[in-house]
């Protein structure tokens, strides 16, 4: 199931070279096993894309990494701690698929509140103010800072949600479909922002998407299907290995391969 072909050399950070390390990771939701024996690593300081069709378990995997998913078994270490460890709560930024902001607060009031939770106390007020202003600018909402979140368009609201995750300086950003429903210009700007965050702040980004053309913008890819990993590689290596032109073709090729393998297993049994 797993592909362990070596990727390009990882950035050498002496303490923890990997941001996320999973082994035998299984998640059960109700009667269904949503994730089955996953094993992978997410290198630090890079953008890793988590791709696969809707319902394949991307969101569940992200929730497991940020520590909000129940019934997780196996090994899952995040930034050197078991996932969900209290010390990780200031070090991870997490954006859910549906924008999770208060509709009856303005953009700035939303960010003010979340900033006060991350960095509480009066002495930090000035730092918080700067962080909030910068986060609003990062997602290009400065002109809408005093608008109620509920009055914004869908794309704008999801950017408010993203801005919350950019507060402070998270070492790991977990973004669940952050570019869904955005226009092409905005999508390009956000991807530029993601690369900027990875390069300038050395942050690790895990970005999910079901749009395969976004895969080309990632350093590494995790391809998922029905709760299993099909590949863990760079976009280039994936295309070369499968002889495909695009990541989308590579993905389809891998799906067929997995189906065929499952069929032979069935018949030899």
């Amino acid at each position, binding site marked *: 199931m797993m592909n362990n072909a070596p990727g390009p050399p990882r950035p050498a950070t002496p303490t923890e070279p990997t941001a996320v390390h999973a082994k035998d*990771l299984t998640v059960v*939701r*109700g009667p269904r096993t949503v994730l089955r024996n996953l094993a992978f690593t997410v290198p630090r300081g890079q953008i890793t894309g988590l791709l696969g069709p809707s319902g394949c378990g991307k969101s569940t995997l992200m929730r497991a990494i*940020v*520590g*909000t*998913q*129940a*019934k*997780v*078994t*196996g*090994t*899952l*270490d995040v930034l050197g701690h*078991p*996932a*969900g*460890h*209290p010390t990780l*709560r*200031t070090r*991870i930024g*997490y954006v*859910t698929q*549906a*924008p*999770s*902001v*208060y*509709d*009856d*607060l303005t953009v700035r*009031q939303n960010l003010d*509140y*979340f900033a*006060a*939770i*991350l960095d*509480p*106390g*009066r002495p930090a007020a000035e730092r918080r103010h700067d962080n909030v202003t910068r986060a609003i600018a990062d997602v290009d909402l400065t002109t809408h800072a005093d608008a*109620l979140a509920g009055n914004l368009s869908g794309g704008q609201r999801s950017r408010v949600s993203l801005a*919350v995750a950019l507060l402070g300086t998270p070492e790991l950003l977990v973004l669940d479909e952050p570019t869904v429903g955005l226009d092409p210009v905005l999508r390009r700007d956000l991807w530029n922002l993601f690369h900027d965050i990875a390069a300038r702040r050395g942050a690790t980004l895990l970005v999910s998407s079901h749009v395969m053309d976004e895969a080309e913008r990632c350093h590494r890819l995790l391809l998922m299907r029905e709760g299993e990993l099909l590949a863990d590689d760079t976009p280039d290596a994936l295309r070369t290995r499968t002889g495909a032109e695009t990541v989308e073709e590579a993905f389809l090729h891998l799906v067929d391969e997995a189906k065929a393998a499952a069929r032979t297993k069935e018949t030899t049994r």
Partner: protein
Amino acid sequence: MTPTTTAAPPRALNPARTTATATRVLRQLTHDPRTIALLILIPCVMLFLLRYVFDGSPRTFDSIGASLLGIFPLITMFLVTSIATLRERTSGTLERLLAMPLGKADLIAGYALAFGTLAIIQSALATGLAVWFLGLDVTGSPWLLLLVALLDALLGTALGLFVSAFAASEFQAVQFMPAVIFPQLLLCGLFTPRDTMHPVLEAISDALPMSYAVDGMNEVLHHTDMTATFVRDVLIVAGCALLVLTLGAATLRRRTA
């Protein structure tokens, strides 16, 4: 990974995060002036109506009016909190907050602080109107009425927070009001003294917190000093509020399925 054995977060309240949460809840309300107006005006209008409904029997107005001063904050805070926390659960903001370094106690105390403040304004206006303009005849101190009203508001907040965990939608949350509040309303002694009810009902009413809220109000109505019964009533209401708040905290899960 061993998520279940992960060290528990610090339990102690963080005052800065608590006040930030309270400020946020109040800011949300300031964007909704109609709700504030309804919360503050309706008890006053009801008391005004009640005064002239019992125009011929001021004693009845005294008794029912005082009881209502305790019941209003309980009901309104129950409704407001159950909807507000349900929204927090369904909008994803609760999940986001619990993935941040926010203690559950901070969140609950923040809500209690915000709605407690609102309850003080609501109760002060209603009590002031009843005592000074509608001639509600209170033997004890109106400040004690206010104290009981505030504790009732906290109890309402606690109950609302707790039931919101069992409501999947705002429709269900609103239906919890008849389920949780109406039985207490019938049995609390508002309609008839509790010792004249069927013994079974009287025993049930002994176990319901609203009975003590109404008892406390009536103690203030009839006695100049703080009686032992009043102290008992206040402690029971406060104890129930704390107990239900703790139960409510248990319904806030960092990890969900």
